[in-house]
């Protein structure tokens, strides 16, 4: 619950600000574009290192014999990702499956930050003197766009590598044939640019909205928070997993579309 001095609007506003580092002045605060959201960077880095270290630990001790509990768990996740990849993607790529795994695990772990009580990290850090802190990296569009633009780059890369000159033909003649060339190109551009945009905005929107609802729930009187908070948290477990899964699946789908010709 917010401090008595804060109004509702102030409380919400307070929670929507990042812990920022101006890269020009190298001090806390905003420097326009050259600002780094420290909270997003640190939490995502922490989560990323956590999953990578965990999986590396399993990889080092991986045995073809009877797997331990941790290896079993990681193998279940990997088998799940691998199945998703082979179901959709028919090419041969060393990158796509690990990429899908990284996306799934990382997005999931970052989303899980949403299940922490909304005020835990900001309040704790406030005691040490940091004014703002947003603990869910995926609710930061920078995070979502960093991943979706990477996927976008890969889509372009695979389109060029797999199709070569036939890509030009594909862009010019589909879907309406060569006589409507400008429209074809226009449609294709929209189609391609919508991919990273929708990918990022879907994740960002879901997590941001979820977080906002937690903020609103936190504004209720203390004795009534448990019911909506509990219900929303349980529902959010589903959203967290689902969004990580959707991001992964769409990445695979887009990349396999880039591999196959239309």
């Amino acid at each position, binding site marked *: 619950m917010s401090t008595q001095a804060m109004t509702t609007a102030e409380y919400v506003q307070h929670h929507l600000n990042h812990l920022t580092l101006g*890269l020009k002045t190298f001090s806390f605060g905003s420097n*326009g*574009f*050259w*600002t*780094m*959201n420290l909270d*997003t*960077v640190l939490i*995502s*880095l922490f989560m*990323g290192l956590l*999953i*990578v270290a965990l*999986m*590396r630990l*399993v*990889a*080092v001790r*991986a*045995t*073809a*014999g009877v*797997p331990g509990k941790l*290896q079993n768990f*990681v*193998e279940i996740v*990997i*088998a799940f990702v*691998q199945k998703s990849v082979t179901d959709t993607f028919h090419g041969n790529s*060393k*990158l796509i*499956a*690990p*990429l899908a*795994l*990284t996306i799934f695990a*990382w997005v999931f772990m970052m989303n899980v930050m949403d299940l922490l009580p909304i005020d835990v990290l900001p309040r704790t850090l406030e005691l040490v003197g940091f004014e703002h802190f947003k603990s869910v*990296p995926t609710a*930061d*569009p*920078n*995070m979502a*766009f*960093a*991943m979706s*633009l*990477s996927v976008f780059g890969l889509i372009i890369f695979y389109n060029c590598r797999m199709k070569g000159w036939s890509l030009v033909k594909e862009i010019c003649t589909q879907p309406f044939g060569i006589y409507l060339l400008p429209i074809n190109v226009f449609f294709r551009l929209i189609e391609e640019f919508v991919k990273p945009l929708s990918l990022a905005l879907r994740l*960002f929107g879901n997590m941001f909205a979820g977080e906002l609802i937690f903020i609103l729930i936190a504004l209720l009187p203390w004795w009534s928070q448990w019911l909506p908070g509990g219900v929303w948290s349980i529902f959010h477990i589903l959203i967290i997993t689902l969004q990580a899964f959707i991001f992964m699946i769409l990445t695979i789908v887009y990349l396999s579309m880039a591999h196959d010709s239309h």
Partner: protein
Amino acid sequence: MEINATLFGQLITFWLLVWFTMKYVWPPITKAMNEREKKIAAGLEASERSKRELELAEHKALDIIKEAKQNAVMIVDQAHKRSVQLVDEAKEIAREESKRILEQANEEFAREVSQTKEELRKRLAGLAIAGAEKVIQRNLDANTQATLLSEFAAEL
């Protein structure tokens, strides 16, 4: 919603994570999984094969037992025949032996009889002569006596 330099930081982090996963996480784990899959498949196959082999061995064992039984019957049969044969042979030998012994005994007997006869003849002749000597001691001369005696001996 504001886009700022965080984007670049996150891009770098993302690609580092993807690179690390691709290089150091995915291959060893999937390799272990594939190996296990192969191991299990091989194990299943081996068990299937050994099951077949066991069946085969059982069949073979049964065959061997059957053959051994037949052999045993045959051997017993042979032994039986052989024993009968042996007994027959022994009987034959015994019969021949007994015949030979009998013949020998007969011969011995005949020889002894003839010997005895000879002896008896000689003694009888001697006795007869002695008797006759006593009867005609005085009547006959030595010449006549000798003639008579030889006549008598020839008649005997």
